[in-house]
């Protein structure tokens, strides 16, 4: 009876304890590494926020419209705090990965390897999104100023359209980089973009016939100077 009890309960328990005792140093090392990482991440966050304040980047973010955009997305933090927090989680994540690899669990090692190989894609996607954001803002504003100066009645929507298309491009490229629904995203984008172009062509073609005729008449007819303005500015 005792032999059976030993074989069924005591021996497996002993094995579990032995394994746990063997794994304990690795686990402890992992926990220590992660804890150190958290402390370091906190210090990095403080440092980054301090640098951003010294370089007065917060004002630059406000001027470039980043702060306003964040507020519109219901993000209450300032860009400085947000960047600091991003650095905190980046360092914390790196140390978490380090802690897991210190523990040498085969399944986790495999997962980590795949994750590390995927990380460059995330980085590239983020860079693409950032470039798209700045380019969208810049060209959107350039369009707005140019169309206001040209006296276009649709300056606002035109500018938003340009910005939107560029952001859409950036998102499509980012998703493609991440390999998320690659064919679906591209097909959806192509259909949508084609649809927009077709709609615009139809709108201009059908709705703008009279406008085009008036414009051409004004441009090429000698008479019809009601709109004339001969100011020499220089």
């Amino acid at each position: 009876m005792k032999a059976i009890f030993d074989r069924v309960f005591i021996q497996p328990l002993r094995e579990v304890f032995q394994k746990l005792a063997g794994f304990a140093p690795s686990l402890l090392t992992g926990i220590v590494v992660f804890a150190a990482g958290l402390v370091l991440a906190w210090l990095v966050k403080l440092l980054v926020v301090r640098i951003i304040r010294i370089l007065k980047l917060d004002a630059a973010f406000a001027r470039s419209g980043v702060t306003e955009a964040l507020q519109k997305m219901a993000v209450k933090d300032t860009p400085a705090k947000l960047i600091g927090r991003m650095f905190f989680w980046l360092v914390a994540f790196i140390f978490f990965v380090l802690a897991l690899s210190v523990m040498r669990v085969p399944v986790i090692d495999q997962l980590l390897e795949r994750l590390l190989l995927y990380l460059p894609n995330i980085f590239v996607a983020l860079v693409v999104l950032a470039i798209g954001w700045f380019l969208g803002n810049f060209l959107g504003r350039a369009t707005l100023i140019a169309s206001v100066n040209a006296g276009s009645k649709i300056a606002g929507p035109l500018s938003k359209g340009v910005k939107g298309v560029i952001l859409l491009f950036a998102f499509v490229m980012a998703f493609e980089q991440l390999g998320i629904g690659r064919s679906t995203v591209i097909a959806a984008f192509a259909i949508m973009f084609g649809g927009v172009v077709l709609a615009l062509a139809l709108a201009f073609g059908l709705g703008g016939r009279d406008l085009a005729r008036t414009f051409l008449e004004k441009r090429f007819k000698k008479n019809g100077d009601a709109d004339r303005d001969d100011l020499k500015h220089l």
Partner: protein
Amino acid sequence: MSGKTPDAAGISRAKTAGLKNVDILVGIPSFNNARTIGHVVRAVEAGLTKYFPGRRAVLVNSDGGSSDGTTDVVRDASLDLDSILLDHRKGAFRKLVIPYHGIPGKGSAFRTVFEIARELEAKACAVVDADLRSITPEWVELLIKPVLEESYDYVAPYYMRHKYDGTITNTIVYPLTRALYGKRIRQPIGGDFGFSGRLASFYLGKDVWASDVARFGIDIWMTTTAVANGFKLCQAFLGAKIHDAKDPAADLSAMLHQVVGSVFDLMEDYADIWRTIRDSEPVATFGFVYSVGLEPIPVNLEKMIEKFQMGVRELAPFYRSFLPDDILAFLTDLAAQSDRGAFAYPDSAWVRTIIHFVLACHRKLASREHILKSLTPLYLGKVASFVIETWESPAEEVERRLEGLCRSFESEKDYLIERWNGQA
């Protein structure tokens, strides 16, 4: 970039062989001006013959690769001296037709003129536009004589213009340049100038020939460089300036970007100088000032106000990034003004607007091109207000009105300096 380019120097040496120590050099930059340049060349030749008979003179046509036969017109242009009661003289007047090299633009054409002036050791020089219709032989006298006989280094033009002609000059360039550098040069971007050989060499020594100065902005650059570096300067009354219409499709915002941008750039270069200057003083004016009958200029007031309103409405979020709240509130109220008669953009608000555009460019608060081009609707608002205010006024009264604007710019200079220095 201050040295000669091999091509330009090579051409000038070959073409100027046998010439040295000339007294007078007149430069005419050109690009497809076949219709008008013949008249300009004849006027210059008549002026040199009539007013400087004993002097060695050279006319330089610095051409930018015209395809309409401009250079042929220059070569063939001849003057019937008998018809204008002048005696013939031989060998004292030479014409040089030289294509300029480098960045296409009036500045590069001028650079070639300066190089030849240095090469020939010219004592006095003048440059006149190739599209002038109102140039007379007297222009040559008025631009050259102050240099040759009165030891002036720079002669700015002073034209009689319609009250609504040259509105960028009147509302921005003249008052701002005057307030900054303390000299009342009425047409700082006139286009026709006289200058000494010494000043031509000084210009050549400046490292600007690969910048926007080579393309555009040479006029304000020449004036500002002469003023800021303490050269002796004056202005000459030339009468009316009538010239071929510029490209009618030329975009106003591009014009503002180029001209106002050049003034702002020069403020960076000469900040140490203009920050020490207070008030302004008149400069000597040569020539017999007389009134000229000027063609009326049609003004579309409604269109200007509409563009101002739309600009304020659409660009308000952008303006908010560099204009103070009180100016923005004023602009918003003015844009909402429905009574055209009450539409008024006072000088004080206009001066503050310009100062904050200057500061926005200085502090690089956004793309420089965006800042400058976004000035267009506000400028149209100011012009519309000016037109409403002076509709019934004669030229003298309008000039007095502009004097008031200039004084507003001068009185706000401390406000600008404090902010430029980062003290406010």
